[in-house]
Structure formats: structure tokens, C-alpha cells
């Protein structure tokens, strides 16, 4: 098919229209509107960088960025530890390997909204009862403080997504040649040495993928945040995605919310691109 072929363009028209109308045009318009006083219908005035100056002085927004960054960091580390850990367990020759894969992956298929509601019950009622039963203070009052809200979202996310990351690591672990491991065994390498010198380097590409996926997922989380804590108490556990939604659709401050959305885009892109760049570099060096 050449550029002049009619078929080429006919085959592409639906997706060009789709991506254009749904993503590209709103993205460009959004960027322009973020410099105005746009209210969702019309814009009367060009404000320059006013929206951007204001949002960097808004405590709530800066707090949500800090909260999200903190969350992303913890979630990425824990998700990869759990994901790789679970993968190492289920790729052993266990009787329950298949059953365990099914179980670990299951939460992934259910939406974050529904899972967040289930965990609200676990954190409030079940934890409360465990606290009363055992007398351990730490189980009481979950989700009522910023700290327990933070760890609540972390636990929920790990439980939901570790199975997904596990699947990625499994794909790479199963590609490691068995005779390589056998040869190392015969040479007298112990379990830890085999992991460090064979498994770990061969699984390195899976790190690139998993880190990229977990990082971008953690930054964009919304459903879990909404259903588990709804940003509370006092908006202290509100993440950036929720900040933007609320500024736009609760406060009706469209142009200002869009400026936040542009900053959000910049953060997500910079993080994702740097990360891919460094991981590629490291893989080559290895």
C-alpha cells in the first residue's frame, strides 16, 4: 500500500478520527484553554501563566503531588518485590502452582472501584474486630488518618496488581534455560548464587517493563482512591488524578483544573521517559 493508495487511507480513517477527536484535539485545546479563564463553554480572557502560578501556590494541589509521588515510590518497590516473589514461588514445581497463579491474578480482573469498597469493609470492620479481639491498637481507626489511608491504598494496590506483575516475571522466568540452572547446580552454586548470577540478570528486561507499568499505574490511580478513602480525611489522601477531577467537576473550575492536567501530563511523561531511558541503558551494559 502506498501513500497514494485509497485503500491505505480508508483503512486508517476510523482510527485517525477516533484518536484525533478523542485524544489529540482535546489535548491541544486543553493546553490552550489552560492559559485562559475557560469555563467549559467559552473563554473570554487570556491569562498567560496565571493558572500555573496559582496552582503551584495551592497547598492542596502540592500536597496531592507529594502524596502521589510518595505512593508511587512505595507501590513500585512493593509491587515488584511481591510480583517477583510470587512468580518465583509459582514457577517452582509445586502441586498447587496453577491454582496459586489463578488466585494471585484474580483481583486484577475486578475493577479498582469494587475492590476499594471491599477493602473499606476489611479496613474498617474486619481490622476493627481484630483490634478488639487481640487488643493491638494498630488495627483500630484505619482510613481515619492520612497515614492509615496511605497504607490502605498501598495494601489495596499491591493486593490487586501484584498478580499482574507476577505474570510478567513468569513470562521471563520460564524462558530461562533449565540446563543453565542444572549446570550451575552441578558446579556447586547454591540457591542464592543461582538467583544472583543467572535468574536475576536474565530477568532484567522484565524489570524495565514492570517498573514502567507500575510507575505509570501508580501515578494515574483514581478508582481505588475514590472508593477506599475518597481523599479523606480532609483531602489529605487525595491523589493528583482525583484532584483534577474534583477541581473540574465539583468546583467547576475548568481552566484551572486543565492547567493541573497539563502539569500531570508533564510529570507522567518525564517519569516514564527517564525510566525507560535508564533501564535500556542498564540492560545494554549488562
Amino acid at each position, binding site marked *: 500500500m502506498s501513500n497514494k493508495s485509497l485503500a491505505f487511507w480508508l483503512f486508517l480513517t476510523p482510527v485517525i478520527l477516533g484518536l484525533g477527536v478523542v485524544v489529540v484535539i482535546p489535548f491541544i485545546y*486543553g493546553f490552550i484553554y489552560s492559559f485562559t479563564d475557560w469555563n467549559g463553554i467559552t473563554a473570554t480572557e487570556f491569562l498567560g501563566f496565571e493558572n500555573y502560578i496559582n496552582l503551584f501556590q495551592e497547598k492542596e494541589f502540592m500536597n496531592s503531588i507529594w502524596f502521589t509521588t510518595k505512593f508511587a515510590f512505595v507501590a513500585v518497590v512493593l509491587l515488584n518485590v511481591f510480583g517477583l516473589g510470587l512468580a518465583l514461588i509459582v514457577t517452582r514445581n509445586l502441586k498447587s502452582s496453577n491454582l496459586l497463579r489463578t488466585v494471585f491474578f484474580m483481583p486484577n480482573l475486578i475493577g479498582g*472501584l469494587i475492590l476499594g469498597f471491599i477493602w473499606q469493609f476489611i479496613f474498617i470492620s474486619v481490622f476493627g474486630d481484630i483490634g478488639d479481639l487481640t487488643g493491638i491498637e494498630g488495627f483500630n481507626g484505619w482510613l481515619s488518618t492520612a497515614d492509615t489511608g496511605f497504607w490502605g491504598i498501598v495494601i489495596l494496590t499491591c493486593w490487586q496488581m501484584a498478580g499482574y506483575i507476577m505474570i510478567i516475571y513468569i513470562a521471563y522466568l520460564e524462558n530461562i534455560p533449565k540446563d543453565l540452572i542444572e549446570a550451575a547446580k552441578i558446579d556447586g552454586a547454591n540457591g542464592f548464587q543461582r538467583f544472583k548470577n543467572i535468574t536475576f540478570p536474565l530477568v532484567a528486561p522484565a524489570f524495565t517493563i514492570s517498573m514502567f507499568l507500575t510507575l505509570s499505574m501508580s501515578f494515574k490511580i483514581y478508582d481505588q482512591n475514590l472508593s477506599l478513602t475518597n481523599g479523606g480525611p480532609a483531602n489529605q489522601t487525595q491523589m493528583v488524578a482525583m484532584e483534577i477531577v474534583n477541581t473540574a467537576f465539583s468546583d467547576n473550575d475548568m481552566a484551572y483544573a486543565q492547567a493541573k492536567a497539563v502539569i500531570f501530563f508533564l510529570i507522567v511523561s518525564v517519569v516514564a521517559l527517564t525510566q525507560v531511558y535508564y533501564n535500556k541503558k542498564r540492560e545494554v551494559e549488562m
Partner: protein
Amino acid sequence: MKKNNEKRNLISIEVLGLVLGLLWIAPFYLMIVNAFKTKRDIFTGVLGLPEEWITENFIEAFIDLEFLKSLFNSTLITTLSVAIIIIFSSMAGYALARNKSKLSGTMFFIFVAAMLIPFQSVMIPLVALFGQADMLNAGGLIFMYLGFGCSLSIFLYHGAMTGVSKSMDEAAIIDGASRFQLFWFIVFPLLKPISVTVGILNVIWIWNDYLLPSLVLSESNATIPLKMFFFFGQYTKQWHLALAGLTIAIIPVIIGYFFAQKQIIAGVSEGAVK
């Protein structure tokens, strides 16, 4: 001696796995068990089994969720969106892979780069634009899913095209087939494995999506997650009903997972690793 050691090792790993497995399904277990309790029973304790297993909660939740209606809405929107994504993305992936020009390469790059844009960065102008065009309805939503879903799908189809030999194209054209016939009768059937992957990934995403439908649909044609949100708001602190509703909402997913488990795990793995 060494063999024995290894066996013991394997058993302890199996035990560790099973303990983690139990921990993993504990939230579901607690949800289901407590959904069978009365309000008073939940108040006395959530850790034990119900004093008396009651089913009224499920009936009430089923009616309040208008479950059949939300199930129908979710099914309709998911099926149509995924069908459209598969049809148009496969065509685009084919066209872009068979044209090696600079323009084609640039377009492919744009489609892939668009994956970087988070939903929240375009959501506000998108809703405003579709609002002005009077398209904030199920039809508009399906079109939006095409726009958001086509990037990854085109990427996967484009990758899979390397396995489809070009000589087949030429033979079919010589035999007088049009491009359209050639694609649908010869190329598309060969792309079936990747179509399954694309289908599974998009079903999981669209079936569970909450934010976009919440901005586009009214309560009368709500999907399951959207209806669940309204339902849950109505029954805060009435855990017996809320948990029954959550259990009902999960059932279709569990049934689907039960039947297509292998394909789902394989599809998700392929989608992520590429």
C-alpha cells in the same frame, strides 16, 4: 541427603505459597460470608460464620442495583466497543505495516506516543466537546473507547503483522481480490491469536472502567461499576447490603475467569511483555 534437603525446601515453599494464597482470597471470603449475615449479626462480629445464613440481602441488593439492566448495559457497551476496536485497529495495523513510507512511520509513532497521555489530561475538554455535540451518551462513549483503545491495539496488531507473509497479499491481488477482501478473508484470520489478546485486554479495561462512564452516562443507562458507586453511597454503614451488592457485581467476572482463565492469563502476559 541432598535430594531430601531439596524436597523439604520445596514443601516449605509450597506451604508459603498456600498461606499467601489464603491471605489473597481472604477479602473475598470475608465479603461473601458477611453478605449472608443480618445487620445485627455483622455488628456483633465480622470474623465468624453467620449465626443464620440469610439470602434476603442478595435479593434486596439485586433489585436495588437493577442488576439485569446494569449487566445488560455493561455487556452492550463492552461488546460493541471491543468489536469496533478490533475491527478498526486491525485494519490500521495492517495498513501501517504494509506501507513502509516515512508518513506511515510517523503516523505509527503518533499512535504509540499517544499512549503516554493520561486520561485526566484530556478528560475535561473531551467532555466539553462531546457535550456541545450532544454526544454524551452510550454511542459517544463507544466512540471514545475507540479513541483511547486504538493505540495499544494498533501497536499489537502492527507487531503481529511481521508474521504474515507479504507474498500472500500479492497472490490474492493477482487473483483479483480487492484490498478489503484480501484483508478480511486472508489476513484477518491469520491475526486471530493477537485478536484474542487485544479483545481480552480491552474487555478487562472497559468492563471495569468507572471514571469515563461516570462523566458520560446518566444513571438510567449506568454500567455495573457506575451503578455500584451510586448503590454503595446509598448504603454506607449498611454492610450487609453493600457486601451482597459487591458479591453480585463480581459474579460475572468470576464466571468469565473460570471459563477463559488460560486465555486471559496468556493474553495479559502477551499484552504487557510487548
